[in-house]
């Protein structure tokens, strides 16, 4: 995308922090890895009925993919699309490795409490999402396999995983064009398989703009996405096209 879209709002999420908010359909959220090496762990919920949530299995099965990138969509467990990935300069976002928890963070990086470290304290991905979910009346029961934007994990034929360090570079970005009103929760804690020490997770910038008219077409070369988009339109009573 060459032209600069008109930004509606922006938000900085420092490394190791967390954020949540409602993203309206018709808008696009750009996540930017400011310094390189960031991880953005994300879950999506239907704003009106939060029992409907991002579904890893349906997303992967519908698109016969293990990674997410431009041209893919993020599917709900109700046969609908939350958002289409309409730009991605990284080419690969992890779909299966989940979140770090307090134990993992402590074993890998040690402990850094607020008392001594102020806002440089160490927070896990799970705790970040639990804090954000709590703000919307949700909790541990609502945590399912999430997307890790900016992180690349490959597999060999035996299923052995390999975290690819240095994958995301400074300025890399992913555009999520929403077709449903969506509660998004986000943590910028380190990816669970990132072996890099010390605890220095990267900052992620959020910018929202109106979705360009043609953008969604990026995802409609997959017929499963056309049907899931219709299902989403039906949810908003836009009728069958």
């Amino acid at each position: 995308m060459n032209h600069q879209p008109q930004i509606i709002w922006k938000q900085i999420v420092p490394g190791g922090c967390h954020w949540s908010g409602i993203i309206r359909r018709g808008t696009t959220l750009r996540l930017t890895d400011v310094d390189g090496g960031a991880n953005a762990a994300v879950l999506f919920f239907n704003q009106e009925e939060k029992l409907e949530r991002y579904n890893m299995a349906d997303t992967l099965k519908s698109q016969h993919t293990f990674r997410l990138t431009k041209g893919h969509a993020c599917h709900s467990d109700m046969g609908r699309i939350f958002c289409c990935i309409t730009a991605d300069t990284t080419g690969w976002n992890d779909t299966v490795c989940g979140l770090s928890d307090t134990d993992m963070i402590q074993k890998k990086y040690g402990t850094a409490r607020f008392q001594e470290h102020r806002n440089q304290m160490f927070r896990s991905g799970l705790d970040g999402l639990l804090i954000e979910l709590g703000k919307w009346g949700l909790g541990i029961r609502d945590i399912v396999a999430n997307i890790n934007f900016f992180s690349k994990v490959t597999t060999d034929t035996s299923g052995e995983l390999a975290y690819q360090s240095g994958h995301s570079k400074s300025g890399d970005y992913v555009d999520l064009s929403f077709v449903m009103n969506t509660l998004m929760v986000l943590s910028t804690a380190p990816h669970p398989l990132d072996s890099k020490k010390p605890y220095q997770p990267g900052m992620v910038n959020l910018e929202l703009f109106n979705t360009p008219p043609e953008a969604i077409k990026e995802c409609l070369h997959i017929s499963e996405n056309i049907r899931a988009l219709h299902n989403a339109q039906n949810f908003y009573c836009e009728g069958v096209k």
Partner: protein
Amino acid sequence: MNTSYLHTSPFNPEHAVIDEVCAAGEPWVKQVKQGQTFRIVDLEGNQAVDTLFYNAHNPEERYSAADTINRQNKLYLSTGSRLYSNLGNIMLSITADTCGQHDTLGGACSAESNTVRYAPEKFPMHSCRDNFLHALAHDPLCRELGISKRDLPSNINFFMNVPVTEAGGLEFADGVSAPGKYVEMHAEMDVIVLISNCPQLNNPCNAYNPTPIRLLIWD
């Protein structure tokens, strides 16, 4: 597939405390106590067995695909694999497996995802999530635990083959399983097992023909 994962079990079906058959397309719920051994037998081959586990004493603790994957750095399950909970605890360990590979990614079919994956007309077809929801509504163990749709995460598909390529592609290949193949696991805590014996007619995971499974538990 690595054949080094193939391990047969010393347990004799005659000594099992539970020995039941679950018909194609039906749910099945039981408690497996810590220390017990639980076996699922693919009676006719190529049957996908959609399976979830819950801590029998804490409904918020349940099988987690992401924790199982990231804590072992591995996508597929076989002998030696541990099934982790969302709280990072080992729920069960796979102690024997004559199939060699089980899927962590494919999740359950649902009426809604059938409309996306196959065609809008598939909506009325029977699905695994319908099975899960039927069990949640009727089964005494599920009702006692107090779990609902909110507590349905991504499940294991025993006997299912979902190969992922190095380039990041994912396929539904047909079976690595065959009649009589089984997987057996040791319970590390008291668990409730919730199974949907998949009624899927649209893809090779069931060889387009859902069949019964056999379930055994030993003390």
